[in-house]
């Protein structure tokens, strides 16, 4: 069973989601008794990065059309190279967008939002997220499969192999890109992408106003975390929509999720229940979020968060 993986990159550097997808592909290959071939577009990073996570072969493509994302062009390029039974794609904005077109081009079945390694290979049986995390669906695929892997679900586990790279070309030109990019606005340099973050510090209406987010940002910065918010806070305009986590916002699965002043409505929990560890700080002891948390403090955010900042500073040895 030949396993291929799309190793996603940004500005020439492999993304964490791409490395995680390689690690996942390696886990499949180990059980299936095969190797992993990674496909990379316009990457300047060394292929050693991918050997570290288990790619035995790296197919490097340099192509100007692929410098901007277009679902059709990406699907066509990956389809030309992925001559295997399973293709793993990270469930990023780009990956989730081109995977359906890739499946059509390969005549493969598509399984999205996969969370775990497959349980059997013939048929390919795997669990995926459903009902916004309130359920897990297990499906069995006969024949070729394209799967998208939920970010932070499997972990970018190192599993080094000896590998080799090959520069290859694909027959893609600007005519294949149906969507033309006319401008890009990226978040400020150094900001941590919410879906890739290991730690997320999130706050809700308990913060009483946007002017009080300074302590949330300070805590996040100390922890190397991304910031997030509940839906009401995004709707009022205290925080940008891009920070809204929940059923109708972003679904995230960080290693640690710290929820401050968020009661824990069922729609919010749906977006964060994939988190490995959940901490809740809320002055309402009856807040439903405590039932879904691993650790909690019943207390006022304005009292607790400054203390938490001080204790994290002590732990990190920051003055």
């Amino acid at each position, binding site marked *: 069973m030949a396993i291929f993986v799309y190793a996603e990159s940004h500005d020439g550097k492999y993304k964490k989601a791409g490395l995680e997808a390689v690690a996942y592909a390696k886990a499949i290959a180990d059980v299936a008794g095969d190797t992993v071939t990674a496909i990379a577009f316009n990457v300047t990073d060394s292929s050693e990065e991918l050997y570290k996570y288990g790619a035995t072969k790296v197919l490097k493509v340099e192509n100007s059309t692929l410098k901007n994302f277009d679902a059709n062009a990406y699907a066509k390029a990956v389809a030309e190279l992925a001559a295997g039974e399973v293709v793993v794609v990270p469930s990023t904005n780009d990956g989730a967008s081109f995977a359906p077109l890739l499946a059509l081009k390969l005549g493969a079945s598509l399984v999205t939002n996969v969370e775990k390694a497959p349980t059997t290979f013939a048929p390919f049986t795997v669990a995926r997220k459903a009902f916004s995390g309130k359920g897990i669906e297990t499906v069995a695929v006969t024949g070729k499969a394209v799967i998208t892997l939920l970010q932070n679900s499997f972990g970018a586990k190192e599993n080094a192999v000896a590998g080799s790279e090959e520069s290859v070309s694909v027959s893609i030109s600007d005519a294949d890109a149906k969507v033309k990019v006319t401008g890009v606005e990226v978040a400020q340099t150094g900001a941590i992408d919410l879906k890739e973050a290991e730690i997320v510090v999130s706050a809700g209406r308990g913060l009483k106003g946007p002017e009080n987010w300074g302590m949330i940002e300070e805590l996040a910065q100390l922890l190397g975390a991304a910031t997030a918010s509940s839906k009401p806070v995004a709707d009022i305009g205290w925080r940008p929509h891009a920070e809204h986590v929940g059923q109708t916002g972003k679904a995230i699965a960080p290693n640690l999720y710290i929820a401050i002043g968020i009661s824990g409505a069922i729609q919010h929990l749906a977006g964060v229940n994939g988190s490995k560890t959940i901490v809740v700080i809320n002055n309402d002891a009856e807040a439903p979020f405590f039932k879904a948390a*691993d650790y909690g403090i019943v207390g006022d955010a304005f009292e607790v968060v400054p203390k938490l900042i001080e204790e994290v500073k002590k732990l990190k040895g920051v003055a």
Partner: protein
Amino acid sequence: MKILVCISSVPDTTAKINFTGDGKSFDKNGVQFVINPHDEFSLNKAVELQEKAGATVTILTVGDASVDAVMRKALAIGANDGIRIDADARDDFFVATQIAKAAKEGGYDIVLTGKESIDYNGGAVPGLVAGLLDYGFVNGCIGLEVEGSTAKAVREIDGGKENVEVALPAVIAGQKGLVDEAALRIPNMRGIMQARSKQITVVAPEATSTSVEVVGYEKPASRGNVTLVDKDNVAELVRLLHEEAKAI
């Protein structure tokens, strides 16, 4: 301009999710169904384009007669008419095939969908429709204007957003941000009355085959009990996160 908006009928966001005794399917008992929230943003954008640019808006749903109530709500919000593909929406490819067929036959300029449904979370249908029709595809759309035969869209990317242009016809998958949350329309009495007389055309489905079988559903494991830490002992929380959870 003709717009086709694909609507999924999904359990209300507050619904408790249960599965049938054999674990093979979702238990609909006692569950309220609503327009998929991501589709609602796309529907509202379509109605906005209808008012601004004189577009006609047709909604399409794959489902049995039980989805009619949700379709009537969409019509009450302002869509002109509806198409119901009379079949169980059993998998992504099946649904996408039905939409692609209707989109081609109806000659729609824009196929608008939500980026995913909140029940099965496949997120595959919009891309599959684009692939089947060989149309341009913009996913995660948070801004859309139409100028002549070109759609100017804004799409969310990891860590930011991107302005793009796509020639029509195209498939565009919307999400929160496509219109303001506060501007989302709620059916009023006039709209509800008008919706009663709007046409829903019921169409037989196109057959497809599938090689994906649902083995079963389960609920995620419970986390167990929360460990509460006294608010005057925040140091203990940091210790637990560092030493026990190894999270910081």
